[in-house]
């Protein structure tokens, strides 16, 4: 996990995103326990309440679950939930900017499609 303390993004949001990324990449496997808020806060010297706030976002989104006395675990199906979510947001997250930048550089639609084909072959 890595944080950018100079970013406009509040730290609790970064915590949420970093944990979500780790679930997405499989670093935190489904059903396994993730580091406690205390561990994460000590590691990066962040306020525990901030870390908790970030974690709770994922708990609310059913990606994490708290088991009393045992810790916080990755929910079963969390990874697929994230993938589905990101697939839905793919257009807004990537395509819009891509097209905007391409237009700035006078790259037309056919050229973009060719570039994409090239990307898949690599």
């Amino acid at each position, binding site marked *: 996990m890595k944080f950018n*303390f*100079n*970013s*406009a993004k*509040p*730290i*609790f949001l970064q915590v949420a995103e970093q944990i979500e990324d780790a679930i997405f990449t499989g670093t935190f496997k489904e059903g396994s326990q993730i580091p406690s*808020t*205390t561990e994460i*806060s*000590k590691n*990066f*010297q*962040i*306020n*525990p*309440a*901030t870390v908790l706030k970030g974690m709770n976002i994922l708990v609310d989104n059913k990606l994490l679950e708290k088991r009393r006395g045992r810790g916080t675990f990755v929910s079963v199906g969390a990874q697929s939930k994230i993938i589905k979510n990101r697939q839905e947001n793919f257009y807004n997250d990537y395509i819009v900017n891509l097209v905007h930048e391409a237009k700035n550089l006078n790259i037309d639609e056919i050229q973009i499609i060719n570039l994409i084909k090239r990307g898949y072959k690599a």
Partner: protein
Amino acid sequence: MSEGIIIKNLVKSFRKDVILDNVSLKIEPEKIYGLLGRNGAGKSTLMNIIADRKFSNSGSITLNGSTIHDNDENLSKVYLTSEIDVYPDKFKIKDLFHWVSDIYKDFNNDLCKKLSDEFKLNLNSKFGNLSTGYNSIVKIIVALCVPADYIFLDEPILGLDAKNRDVFYNALIQTYSDRPRTFVISTHIIEEIANIISNVIVIKNSKILIDDSTENILASSYAVTGPASQVDEYTDGLNIVGSEALGKIKSNYIFGELNDKPIPDTVTISNIDLQKLFVNLTDKE
């Protein structure tokens, strides 16, 4: 739930100097505060008055609705550690811990032992013979082990090397996780605790300049960077707290809201960290 410490219209002056000018503040339970300000701004005085070590000229300070002054119950909930030594020089550290734990029935003896080991503190040394660093360490250990709910630390890292500062931050985070309570820390090395504190209080010219969460503060601080003339034009009318220039490129630091003006392509708006913000905020007199 407890109400916190409520400070109303606190005034403290000494001869002709006004040290605290009508300060009103609320210190909430279970939060970690950073208390920032230049040397001599009044931070120590404020903490000393809250902890009933010094008296104000006027104003009130209450905890859970009742006054702190001369009130045993409230005083046992508030703890202050500062550069003033309050232990006899001849005391061995282990005796010191013994007597403090004798007074505070719920003193955390286990944590005390653990931290003494982590800091490599020699329990047989005499308090008066300690170096500045270990003097601070002893005070930190006591502060983290007393069963108080509002712990004030006045420049706790004086004389601590980088490794011991790390030990302190980790110990602070751990004990805060185990038993959430309020910590108010005054320090000049802001960047190290910038992410540990959840709230910030800034004292400038004897008044409270800022009293807000770090989240809100960081969300309202910006660096507007670009060619000098365009930056100045864009930031005209905004709350500019400082600026830096490198050749023709200038950065204006804004604290507060931005405006609706369109941002020129050559100008970028980014965020600034707490350290930079406070250096600039507390700079001008």
